[in-house]
């Protein structure tokens, strides 16, 4: 298992390098010009100097390794320096945003908490709703509850977040005036009232994202439970006189969770991608909104870094899912 994990980690290095290269070349070959937004009155020679100042003077085979060095060596050095007060980085050039001229990672660190709160919370809520739905749907297959669960998850698959979010705003903010439609990220939780306010403003974005998660995870949970419920060991457990709750919640659930855990791990990157749209609807100034702004402003280092971070997340979650599968299911042998 350890050898397998190490091998997978080593394989993921060229994968990530290739992905970085693809993203870099896409941005490089694209005809969009970061200087396109500048006024036309700027003389060409000044414009050329500005290009050089942005680091665009060098050809791509110089800039791509430079970006890799900044991402994998310089930025961790700064991170260690900040954490332990050392001086590894020694004033090396960081990845700088074209728009704000400040280090990309500092902006990302500012935006990260909002995204993590909303996205992380919605994922936890979604999974917590999905698991019992999946278990009951499978245990009472073809019952009214199962049919309703199937219908709700069908809706979760079909209604895009940009409509369900807008619909929730129309109903709960505009008509009923129960919940705020804009997520206030400057809000500080200090006492009970502000905590309630924080909860209220999180309800809608979390529910929109959770609907998608619930739809997917509850289907997998149901299918996996159905596979296990007909197995011989279940009959044995019942024959030994175990109560239904022990049979279902201990024996069947544990075995059914094996594939579901990997699905949950694999779904994490997707929900970060989906957050781009949800953040736009509820005006959360998280990473997704940062990406959209950076795209519109031709801020190449920012787009490159955020997209690559998402790719890292995908590759890591794939790895974690595979390793978890091997740990949870002793029948799986990778070596």
């Amino acid at each position, binding site marked *: 298992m350890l050898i397998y994990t190490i091998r997978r980690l080593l394989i993921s290095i060229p994968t990530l390098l290739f992905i970085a290269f693809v993203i870099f070349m896409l*941005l490089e070959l694209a005809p969009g010009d970061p200087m396109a937004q500048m006024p036309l009155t700027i003389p060409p020679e000044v414009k050329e100097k500005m290009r050089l100042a942005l680091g665009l003077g060098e050809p791509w085979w110089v800039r791509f390794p430079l970006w890799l060095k900044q991402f994998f060596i310089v930025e961790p050095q700064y991170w260690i320096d900040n954490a332990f007060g050392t001086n590894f980085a020694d004033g090396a050039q960081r990845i700088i945003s074209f728009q704000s001229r400040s280090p990309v990672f500092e902006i990302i660190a500012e935006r990260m908490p909002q995204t993590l709160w909303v996205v992380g919370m919605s994922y936890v809520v979604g999974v917590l709703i999905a698991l019992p739905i999946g278990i009951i749907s499978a245990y009472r297959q073809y019952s009214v509850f199962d049919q309703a669960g199937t219908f709700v998850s069908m809706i979760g698959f079909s209604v895009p977040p*940009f409509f369900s979010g807008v619909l929730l705003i129309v109903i709960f903010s505009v008509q009923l005036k129960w919940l705020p439609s804009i997520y206030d990220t400057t809000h500080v939780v200090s006492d009970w009232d502000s905590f309630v306010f924080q909860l209220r403003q999180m309800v809608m974005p979390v529910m929109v994202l959770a609907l998608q998660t619930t739809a997917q995870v509850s289907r997998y949970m149901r299918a996996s439970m159905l596979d296990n419920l007909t197995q011989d060991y279940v009959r044995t457990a019942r024959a030994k006189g175990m109560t239904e709750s022990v049979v279902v919640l201990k024996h069947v659930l544990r075995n059914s969770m094996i594939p579901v855990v990997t699905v949950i791990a694999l779904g994490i990157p997707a929900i970060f991608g989906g957050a781009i749209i949800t953040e736009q609807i509820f005006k959360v100034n998280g990473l997704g909104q940062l990406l959209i702004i950076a795209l519109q402003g031709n801020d190449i280092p920012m787009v490159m870094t955020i997209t690559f971070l998402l790719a890292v997340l995908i590759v890591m979650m794939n790895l974690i899912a595979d390793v978890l599968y091997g740990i949870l299911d002793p029948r799986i042998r990778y070596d």
Partner: protein
Amino acid sequence: MTDATLNAVEKPRNQWWDVWAQFRTHKGAVAGLCFLIFITLFVTLGPVLWDVDPGKLNIRNKNVRPIYMGLFGGDAKVAWANPMGTDNLGRDIMANIMAGGRVSLAVGWTAMILAVFLGTLIGVLAGYFKRLDGLLMRFTDLVLALPLLPLLLVMMLLFRDPLRATFGPENGIFILIVTGIGITSWMQTARIVRGDVMALKEREFVLAARSIGTPARRMITRHLLPNVMSPIMVSATLGLATAIITESALSFLGLGFPSDFPTWGKILFDSVDRMTAFPERVIWPGLAISLTVLAVNYIGDGLRDALDPRIRGQ
């Protein structure tokens, strides 16, 4: 006597007739098919009956509410000339929904066909030719590891202007969106097709075909492709659903078609700013997208059951 027994044997039935018989037993799928046919007719034949230019401005006649608002709104501004109301520039919303639906459905179908074509091609090549398998599947894994929505956004933004200049504003964006969605959603089809082709390759009929010297090209088109049709059709329906949602999401993020060119996602995006006063403008296009995708998903569900010979005929 032999004649009598022969007559008693049921007439051989076409496989697709059986599939249709099974498909009809799935109520959701039939309802979905009916809705898909209805919405297709609505957006294609609708403009013939409802002869209003979706782009025509009529500022004097702006912000008309839909006709049902007159029932309980009392003093709401309604007009039979605009059953779904007009927007803030006086454009008729029903005509816009029709025009937008035509674009959304066209993008969905074209992108789905492109994705299914790519997926089938790569899947068959990887499954049939052992030499290509490792390379193509590594490539598929790599594409699956890419963050697709951000990359799609990058493609939209960066290639928009040159394509517009070459093919005109509408066609350029159409080509860009269809290609973008197509090349980012073929991977699942490729994996499924590859798995099925590899299983089929070991069967006796393939061996028999090879023993009489069937060349690879005919082997694939005559023997393998017809047998992997069912998973391809199921993934095609799923592809249509995701393509419609992706196109609307791009329009919603403001990176789709130009603003005077309606699609369902674009109408939704343009109406969000005024949804406090005019919620119906958000609900019409949103409902159109959601119901279409729901219908397609149900059709996919029904097709999966109908094409599975283990379920069919039970």
